């Protein structure tokens, strides 16, 4: 068969107990979150909240205890993510570290790096940014030019990264940098390496970028002779491309790829009861969410088995993005300015604006579909 298979999974044995714990915690922690705060979902950044989550062992759950983890399963972690996303918890200060930077360090980092970074991520005390995109390199990421040159004892970085979410609030980023120049454009995937970069190093300038909503969520980062010591290289010099693409399987596979706008549905439910046509639409939206959930869970299961389901992840992200993008617009049809609570309308308005970005961040729709087409053997 040309397509991809997604075998049904069950959430783990202890899921109901874990869910109950999470719900009790989130009900208390979130009692003052307005719909507008919840609308940020995993883009919301709140260090105090992340530290509380860390205290309860819900960051880096699958990692070895020696590095501050809990040695729980990927599916238990999945349950945790679901509960957080369902209520729109502001998880941004630990999300990237938990999802991709931590796992990358665990897999490929040195023992020293693991000991230095993982326990702090797990405590919710270390926030990570993703340093991939550049002004001239987005979808064609491998063409990136920000370079790290070898100097005694370390590397000197010059260039620019852009769209770096929450970099102004983060402690570290994992940056993909060019360590050997491109000599042949067909070999542009070679000569890239990943580095741990402290966002506050001298020579780094972080400038906010105003987004469509009128907020400054992402940034442009300029590197001007920034020195990082040898100990900050992650994995192998020159293997950055393979490492970063494996990381994308983590970046793209989670439930946040279809749940970003779900809090709107929850917030709107009471209001929707007043609309005779709404139940059918809501039923369909929930049904679709159920299917996407199974597909996403299947990918989590594959990750748990040590596989790299990059293509499956791309497929679920693409289908999930369509869903989370359509949801605010679908519900808007049922809202009535005179009846729908203002805070729900505000949430809807915000989501309508940011929903455009769902199919850009983490790889655009066209790029993901290209990956699926490759699976089909068409490219």
């Amino acid at each position, binding site marked *: 068969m040309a397509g991809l298979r997604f075998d049904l999974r069950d959430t783990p044995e202890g899921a109901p107990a874990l869910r109950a714990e999470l719900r009790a915690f989130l009900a208390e922690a979130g009692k003052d979150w307005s719909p507008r705060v919840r609308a940020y979902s995993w883009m919301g950044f709140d260090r105090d909240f992340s530290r509380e989550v860390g205290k309860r062992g819900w960051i880096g759950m699958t990692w070895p205890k020696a590095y501050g983890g809990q040695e729980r399963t990927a599916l238990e972690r999945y349950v945790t993510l679901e509960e957080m996303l369902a209520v729109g918890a502001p998880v941004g200060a630990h999300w990237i570290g938990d999802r991709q930077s931590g796992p990358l360090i665990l897999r490929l980092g040195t023992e020293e790096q693991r000991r230095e970074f993982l326990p702090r991520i797990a405590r919710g005390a270390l926030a990570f940014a993703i340093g991939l995109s550049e002004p001239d390199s987005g979808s064609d990421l491998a063409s990136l030019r920000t370079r790290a040159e070898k100097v005694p004892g370390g590397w000197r970085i010059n260039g620019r990264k852009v769209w770096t979410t929450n970099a102004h609030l983060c402690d570290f980023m994992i940056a993909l940098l060019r360590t050997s120049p491109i000599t042949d454009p067909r070999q542009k995937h070679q000569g890239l390496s990943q580095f741990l970069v402290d966002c506050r190093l001298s020579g780094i300038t972080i400038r906010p970028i105003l987004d469509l909503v009128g907020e400054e969520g992402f940034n442009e980062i300029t590197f001007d002779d920034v020195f990082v010591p040898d100990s900050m290289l992650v994995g192998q010099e020159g293997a950055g491309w393979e490492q970063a693409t494996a990381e994308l399987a983590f970046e793209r596979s989670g439930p946040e790829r279809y749940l970003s706008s779900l809090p709107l549905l929850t917030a709107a439910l009471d209001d929707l009861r007043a609309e005779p046509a709404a139940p059918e639409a809501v039923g369909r939206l929930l049904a679709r969410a159920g299917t996407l959930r199974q597909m996403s869970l299947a990918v989590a299961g594959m990750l748990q088995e040590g596989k790299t389901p990059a293509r499956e992840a791309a497929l679920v992200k693409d289908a999930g993005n369509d869903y989370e993008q359509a949801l605010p617009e679908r519900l808007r049809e049922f809202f009535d300015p005179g009846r729908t609570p203002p805070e729900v309308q505000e949430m809807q308005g915000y989501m309508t604006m940011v929903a455009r970005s769902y199919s850009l961040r983490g790889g655009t729709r066209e790029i993901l579909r290209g990956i699926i*087409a490759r699976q089909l053997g068409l490219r």
Partner: protein
Amino acid sequence: MSDTNEDLRGILLEQVERLLTDRSSPNLLRATERGEWPAALWAEVEALGLPLALVPEAMGGVGLGWADAVAVWQVLGRHAAPLPLAESMAAAALLAAAGITPPAGLIALALPGEATAWGRQAGHVAAVQGGEVTLHAAADLTWQPGRSLIGREPADQAMLGEPLARGRVPAGWGADAGLLAGALLQAAKIAGALEAALDMTVDYAKTRKQFGRPIGGFQAVQQQLAVCAAEVAACGVAAAQAGRAADRRGLAGAEFRDRLGQGGGGRGSRDRCRHHPPGACRHRLHR
């Protein structure tokens, strides 16, 4: 129930796959659409014990669950299998649930308001109305010419008389047990047919040349097929999930989590899989 049947299910799926690969052909499909009963193929599925697969062992069946059935029906859909096996399996399951031992041979499934596929060919007819199931000898019934809603196999309307037996499905099966079972089996068959349609379309896109190259080389075509692949995967997952829910929570618990053929944004997969809409590609399934 089905969760413990993994091995059995695997073996069965392989057998059905092999049987249909060997025996299910475009010619056979055309013949059945002309009204010829595929007697040889039916005999083989009976030999595999398939018609009574969902019936508990105590009643002479195999004791498989709905999730297993969905997997089998998906294979039937993939091969556009020209025989009412899924319907007969569901009919037997409904009879057994109502406390009636299902007879051997083809049991046609009569649902309210629908013509019964291969009704005149059946030994028996199971009629389901709400939670009530009745068993009839097909020969005792009068038949009026009818028309299948979506298939092209012969389908006639049964005028039901006094049944051989009468029973009720348990409450957990819901007030629409017959319709739910029918919906589940169609969903599974559609999911299977879509897999085949995707495969064929991809093959076609690789071989059909325009502007000097395979049309699958054009990005516009690739992107459409990628969307199609996602919908096909989603349909399979939705059907499997409904089967599992039916096992765990009773047939009424099998919420059909996804409307097959209906994408999240309201665009149907029928539009997306535009090279071969499922309803139009039955013959191509055998190429």
